[in-house]
Structure formats: C-alpha cells, structure tokens
C-alpha cells in the first residue's frame, strides 16, 4: 500500500507541488526570517528550497517534502552566514498612529524600550528566538513549531519559556 502510494503520489505532479507551496511557503519564509534576519533574503531562500524540491521531485515523497524544504532552506542559509548577530527590525509605533501628536517623553521611552527589546532578542540563541517568535507573533501552536524544528513539544515549551525569561531579565537589566 505504502509503495503504491509513493509511486503514484510524487512531488512532480503540479497539483501536489502547488499544494506543498501553499501549505509551507509562508512558514518557511517566517522561519528563515526569525532565524537569520532580513539580510539573507528569506524570499530567495524559499525559492531556492522549492527549486531543489522540484529538481528532486522524483526522489522526495510528499510526506517527506516538508522536512526536505526546511533543511534545504536552513542549510543554504547556513552556508552563507558565519553566525553574525541577527538584529530584527521592528515596526515603528509612531508610524501607525499617523498624525496624532504624542507626548515626546512617552515616545522616547517607548523607543528606548523597543531598542532594548531588539538588542535582547538579538542576544537570544537562534533556536529560542525562532520558537518564541513563531509562537507569540505568528501564533503557531507548540505542535506546529515542534514539527518545523524537528524537536519535541516539551522542548518547544521550554525554549519559549527560557526566551521569555531571558528577555525579561535582559530588558529589566537584571
């Protein structure tokens, strides 16, 4: 049964390939971004990973495709960077509140807070930062993150907790 399935269902089929793209391209993009930052053009990495999948579509069965994609994207990016510090940009709050005039003191404090936050995030290890942001920003469940990172749910929970703990200590200056 399994062998017939993998024979008829392979990633070379357009509908299967397209579905894999719809299902995983955004997660792949976000994963690369949170891990390596914008400098390494996550969009390109998504493209490279899917190109590789397409080239190997006969060898990779659809149920293995997801881990194939994530490891290709991960490896191509690792080849490029030599563990530089990853600083993620934040969306400035004043941009969103258009024209209303806010207390400059308040604005400055907010700015300082976000700068501290940014620095603290960059000090986290990649694995903690990725788990924390996928969970808190992208709203991914522990189970989904565990699948993406190839670790257990317990480990995901632990990473999110230690990330939060370190962020607080760092930001509060302890």
């Amino acid at each position, binding site marked *: 049964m399994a062998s017939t399935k993998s024979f008829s269902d392979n990633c070379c089929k357009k509908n299967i390939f397209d579905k894999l*793209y719809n299902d995983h391209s955004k997660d792949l993009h976000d994963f690369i971004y*949170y891990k390596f930052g914008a400098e390494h053009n996550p969009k390109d990495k998504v*493209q490279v990973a899917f*190109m590789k999948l397409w080239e190997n579509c006969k060898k990779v069965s659809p149920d293995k495709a997801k881990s194939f994609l994530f490891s290709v994207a991960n490896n191509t990016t690792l080849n490029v960077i030599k563990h530089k510090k990853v600083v993620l940009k934040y969306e400035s709050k004043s*941009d969103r509140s258009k024209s209303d005039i806010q207390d400059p003191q308040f604005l400055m404090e907010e700015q300082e807070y*976000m700068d501290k936050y940014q620095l603290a995030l960059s000090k986290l290890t990649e694995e903690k930062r990725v788990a924390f*942001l996928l969970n808190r920003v992208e709203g991914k469940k522990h189970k989904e993150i565990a699948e993406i990172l190839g670790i257990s749910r317990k480990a995901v929970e632990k990473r999110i907790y230690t990330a*939060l703990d370190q962020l607080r200590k760092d*930001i509060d200056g302890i």
Partner: protein
Amino acid sequence: MEEEIIKKWLNNELSEEELKSFESTKEYKSYVKILDNAKYFKAPEFDADSSKESLDFAIKSRTKSNNKIVYQLIASIAAVLIIGFLIFDYTVPNQLENTKTTEIAQTHNITLPDQSIVDLNANSSIDYNEATWEEERLVSLEGEATFNVEKGKKFTVSTNYGTVEVLGTIFNVKSRDYAFQVQCIEGSVKVGIKNENYILKQHDLLKLEKDKVIIESDRSSLPDWKNNLSIVRNETLNNVLMEFQNYYDVEFETSNIDTNKTFTGSFTHQNMEIALNSITLPLGISYKIEGKKVFLTHK
C-alpha cells in the same frame, strides 16, 4: 519566578488563584509588556502569489535547459526559420525576448535563466533575451533594480546613461529620468559612462550629478528601496516628487510653489500621508489631496 507557573500562564492553564498571585508579582507587568510588544517584530509580509509566479517562471526556464536535446533540435529548426524570416523582414520580433515590468508601488522578484536574481523596484522594467543568454548575459534596465548575479561570464546591465558590468556580485542600479546611481553591495562592478570606465568596490556608491560622476561610500547592505524608503540628499523638490510618483499613483499640482528648492531627508513607501508629511513639513509646504491629485501650496 517559578518556571512551571510561567509555562502554565503562557498556555492559559493557571487556576484563578494561581493567576491572582502571579499577577501580583512585580515581574508580571514586564512579562505582559514583552508579549504585547513581540508583534512589532513580525516578519515582513510574504506575498505567496507573486513568489509562486517567479518560482514557476524559474522552473519553466530550468525545464527548457534540461530538455536539451529537444530544445536544441527546436532551436536549430527555429534558427533556420528565423534566419529565413530575417532575410525578408528585419522587424520579426524575437520570440524569446523577455520583458518584465512593474507598475507604480509594485515590486517583482525575477530569476534569470542562469539563476541570477533581479529584484525589480516600482515603476521599472527589464528586458533580456533568453535565446542568446548563454552567449551574452545582457539585461536592459529602465528604472531601478537590485541584481544578485551568479558567478559566470560577464553580466551586463545596459541603461540610458551607460553600462554596468560584473562577473558575479550584488549591486543596485537606479536609472531614472532624473537620476543615475550604482551601489555595489558585494564584489565589484565596472560602470561605463560615455567612454569612461569606473571600477566600484564593495560599499561604493556612484552617482551622476549634473553630468559629473561622484563616488561615495555607502555601507548599507540593502539599497534603500528594499527597506521601503527613499533617502534623498540635496535633491530639488522636482526630482523628489518624481521619485515619489514611483511609489504612489498621484499627480502633483505645483504651480504655486518653487520646485527648485532642495530637500534632504527620507520618505516611506508604505503610507502616502506620512511620506507627504516627511517631505512637505521641513519645506514649509502644505498639501491637499483630491482624488489622484495633490495640491502643494506655501503655508
């Protein structure tokens, strides 16, 4: 703080009592603030549709080179036919001439046949010929684009101002009616303008100002437009407004103001009102938007 309590709290599993006592700790507010502010670090929007489009395009061109025998056979037949046509009619367009164009406020990611990548900025277009690509990597550019070139034979970007030549590197070319700039982000590039050649190294920025070539240092790892910004130094308001119109589909009514005033500053590509404020406030100009028209007047 108890690890288990926080884990439970993150999963909304605390009992009412536990929650009450956790809320009364002095750390509680810090935790909440951290979680609340995490959203500002959100990854940039991923446009799956346009990325899929360029992926499909890359796959298509890859398939072509993979099916070499068929392709060569077709190519040789085509060559005979094309030569035949050309003898009788010079104007037969080449079937493999590719043009990619972006509209105002639109950007596009294009993969060339050799896997080099072109990030095309708004209101710009590139042309290249897939048929002759193997012999000559040549792209014509109108507007602005960032190139990430795969190593290989000479790669040439041709513009109205001159040519930019490289072997394999990352660089940005801006060729607008009002400006010509080449920024070398990685590797080195050669720029040819009117019989003169200029070699740019990493972090060099070449500008054409009133027919004079100026080379400055610019250490940014991305061109400004990739950060959704235009940064202008000492430009006339006229040029600034032309740059503006690449990102916002509007027309300016400027008969009441002096557009030769110079402006130094930046504006965002993501919100028109903020962008207009960034330009007009420092110059003491006020604006009024009516449909697609923006009226500029002195305050």
